[in-house]
């Protein structure tokens, strides 16, 4: 096999591997695939990235091919003369391979800068949905404040509902550590930094469920800080909003209130009957209208909720052993109500848990 042949084959193989890889990746419809954009921001990023990626693959394959071909072509073989020409350098070549990459990069820089400013534009007007995103350890809270599109505030968590073809302007806040809000199919990530009012715009073209994850290491259960963005038609979204804005689906009184407000002091952190309240902990009004809970890692169903209510730390790692010890010691997460119970506090019974979970599952 002669050397140019090797080169051609290598180049072909490289291109095939690269193309196959990109195609495979594009085909993954896991709902969290940056190569499968479903909104204008992600689409613009993809339009910018893919041509540059291809250019990079071509350059990479060329350089690697050259490395292999040069090494083989100029390999010393027994019996061949061993007196290579002593080339010390070449000014024209040096100038060439300085200027050509500079020109390529200059060409790349133009659309890059344009896209940076394009994506940083602040959408304005009554048809923009404003959402406050709160990064917590380790779950996401979404607040829809009163605005032209929302006549009464709504606080929810783990699942953000948005209407399609509508710019959603996110204001990202944290009162704890740094998180990063990322829904790959809708937009790039934006860090959620304490004391910084960061913003990001997302928009979905079609109805669908898009997965997101916290992308900045934020402590013990960073991996379990997922969420989903559910894009709906405007009518569906309005129906969802109206349902969320209502009070609890069932009366929060009698036994359930005794259990949650008095016996187990759930209300120290949680709210059961008011979807406008932000207590810094998950608002449980309409919990059953969501499909997942606990940082989007568990499906809302009887088994999971019962385990969670009784012994949450067995499901998600949390530094919450001291949460039930008065006076309030700093803690992160949901305590266990069956283990390490401090003196004077009740251990949760299965019957109580069932009652609470039955109530929660009724909270559509």
């Amino acid at each position, binding site marked *: 096999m002669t050397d140019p042949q090797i080169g051609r084959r290598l180049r072909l193989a490289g291109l095939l591997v690269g193309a196959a890889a990109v195609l495979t990746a594009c085909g993954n419809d*896991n709902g*969290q695939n940056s190569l499968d954009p479903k909104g204008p921001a992600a689409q613009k990023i993809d339009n910018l990235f893919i041509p540059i990626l291809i250019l990079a693959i071509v350059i990479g394959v060329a*350089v690697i091919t050259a490395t292999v071909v040069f090494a083989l072509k100029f*390999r010393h073989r027994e019996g061949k003369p061993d007196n*290579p020409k002593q080339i010390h*350098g070449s000014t024209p070549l040096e100038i060439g391979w300085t200027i050509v990459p500079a020109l390529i990069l200059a060409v790349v820089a133009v659309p890059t800068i344009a896209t940076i400013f394009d994506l940083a534009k602040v959408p304005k007007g009554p048809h923009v949905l404003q959402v406050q995103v709160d990064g917590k350890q380790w779950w996401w809270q979404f607040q829809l404040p009163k605005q032209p599109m929302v006549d009464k505030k709504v606080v929810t968590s783990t699942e953000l509902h948005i209407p399609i073809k509508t710019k959603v302007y996110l204001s990202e806040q944290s009162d704890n550590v740094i998180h990063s809000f990322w829904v790959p199919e809708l937009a790039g990530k*934006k860090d959620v930094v304490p004391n910084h009012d960061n913003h990001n715009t997302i928009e979905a073209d079609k109805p669908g469920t898009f997965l997101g994850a916290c992308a900045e290491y934020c402590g013990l259960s960073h991996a379990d800080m997922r969420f989903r963005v559910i894009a709906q038609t405007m009518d569906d979204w309005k129906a969802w909003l109206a349902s969320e804005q209502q009070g609890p689906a069932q009366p929060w009184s009698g036994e359930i209130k005794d259990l949650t407000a008095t016996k187990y002091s759930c209300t120290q952190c949680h709210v059961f009957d008011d979807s406008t309240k932000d207590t810094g902990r998950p608002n449980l009004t309409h919990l059953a209208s969501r499909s997942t809970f606990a940082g989007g890692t568990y499906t809302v169903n009887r088994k999971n909720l019962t385990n969670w209510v009784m012994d949450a730390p067995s499901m998600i790692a949390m530094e919450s052993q001291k949460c039930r010890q008065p006076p309030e010691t700093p803690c992160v997460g949901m305590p266990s109500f069956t283990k390490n119970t401090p003196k004077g506090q009740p251990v949760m019974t299965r019957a109580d848990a069932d009652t609470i979970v039955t109530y929660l599952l009724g909270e559509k």
Partner: protein
Amino acid sequence: MTAVPEVLAPPRPRRLDLLHRPTRTTGFWSWWTTVDHKKIAILYGGTALIFFLIAGIEALLIRLQLAGPNGTVLTQSQYNTLFTMHGTTMVFLVGMPLAVAFGNYFIPLMIGARDVAFPRLNMFGFWAFLIGGLFIYSGFVLGGAPNGGWFGYTPLTSTPMSQGALPGHGPDFWTVGLVMLGFGSVTSGINFIVTILNMRAPGMTLMRMPVFVWMMLVTAFLTVFAIPCVTAALIMVFFDRNFSTNFFLAANGGDPLLYQHLFWLFGHPEVYILILPGMGIISEILPVFARKPLFGYAVVVFSGIAIGFLGWGVWAHHMFATGLGPVAVSAFSLATMLIAIPTGVKIFNWLGTVWGGSVRLKTPMLFALGFIAMFTIGGLSGVTHSIVPADTQQTDTYYVVAHFHYVLFGGLIFAIFGGFYYWWPKIFGKMLDERLGKLNFWLMLIGFNVTFFPMHLLGLEGQPRRTYTYAKGMGWDNINLLVSIGSFIIAASVLVFLVNVVLTTIRGERAPADPWDGRTLEWSIPTPVPEYNFAEIPVVHARDDFWARKYTEDDQGRLVRLPAGGSDSGTTGAVAVAEIEPDSDSGAGEGGDLGGHGEEPGGTGGHGFHMPSPSFYPLILTLGLPILGYAAVFKSPFLAIPGFIVLLFGMYGWAIEPGTAED
């Protein structure tokens, strides 16, 4: 601060010696007090290799956990500790010290010096590295190993232990340990700068220096300027955690992003601190095995310097998602693209070096070629990070993990292994086995690509990094399994290397003084290298001086071997060395005698040179550091007092002890 006592050396030392001065220069105990740059280099290298194995085991555990969805090998907390320690270890306890190891051994040999400028400070640097590393690892048994990430972002790490989401003392050990390592890095940086600038042999002008020395010089400057930035940041983190300051406490007006600026102002130059030595190593290997001078020497040197300068202007490209605003982001995007240019220039010059050569595909050359290929991939994915909108999708995903492993493993570690095979015969006098070496290379190349290439896809498909598990049904399962398999292939390649080392040590062939037909001065002296390196300080007449003593060019620029005796005044066995066919096995016996050629006797110290004497004080001084470190972590004044006493004893002892004992 360690510079304080340096100037106090009195004229009548013997009366003032606090301890009896060690005199051994051989045997086990000599390693504790040695000031010989070559021995210190071996200490650096050996220790760093052990840390490399530890970091590798950490990586394998991580990959076992991630081999399938919802893995249960590790708990969340263990996983966080392992990725923190893997990163911290590889950057601070493997990458930097391995470069320092090669620098320590070969900078003096390459510039024609008998030692570094400050031999005892050199030993202090090693002890600070070892003890700092052990200090960080001691967290595992003393209340919490570091678990805040190798980057230790605030406020996660700066939140006091009592309220933090990070269990245990982890960030305390991490900050204090890194400050200790910083002392070692800065002192060795200063040492290298002074050695390179001040101790070159006559005729060794800056533009005749080997590229490796040049790159170590740039690296040393970067180290000396970058470490204080992170030291300041670490001090602030420690104060926030332990003395309730508000540097990064948002509730009191602190700004968590300040930490990121300070950290990356260190962290980005740090990337070049890691990669420039690797570039230097392969710039030595390529010309030797292509039997051609480095293509565009001056351009390679200046692009290295350019990278060193530009490296200070790109730190915020680690922060594109933090909300810096489009103007700042655009500026850092352009600066990042700019730094690709000198990097690319280097790659083209390396290719130009191979072009037209008489290439010997020995193991060192394979690793050097592997470096070019792998580093190119890492460099190109780096360019895609400068495309800021794309970076907001890629950052903190496996795409970034892939990128920097291509740069740091495919780059630095490949170069380091190339360096091992290249310089092993000079350091240990034995040739590493070629067949095992080639097996090592191919396993590593395949394992590396199987591990890290698919990670590009994982990242683009949305898998965030630093997550201990992932859900089923994300389409990541197969790729992750492949990645995990690849990591074990890398492990196998490292195992082959270790086997090679053991077999070579037991029954390897003796290496001649100049086994590769080398170009630089380290090959001009006998193997094993005498304590004083050069019996007579060489006078340098050319770049690649040793080569110029063996070869010249005919009128067509082709290589011509000089007749025995040479035209130049080589002081060692240059001519005899040139007679050895570097490819043949039969040269070994001859090579063994090379050291004796010329005027050099076999023994050491027979020349009346006053080589620097061994000393206890670098060790004693360094022992003060962990005591003070534990005092800081556990807020114990009772520990602080003995810590200061040991430190002061070490300093004063060092100061009043002369560098070279009187006869």
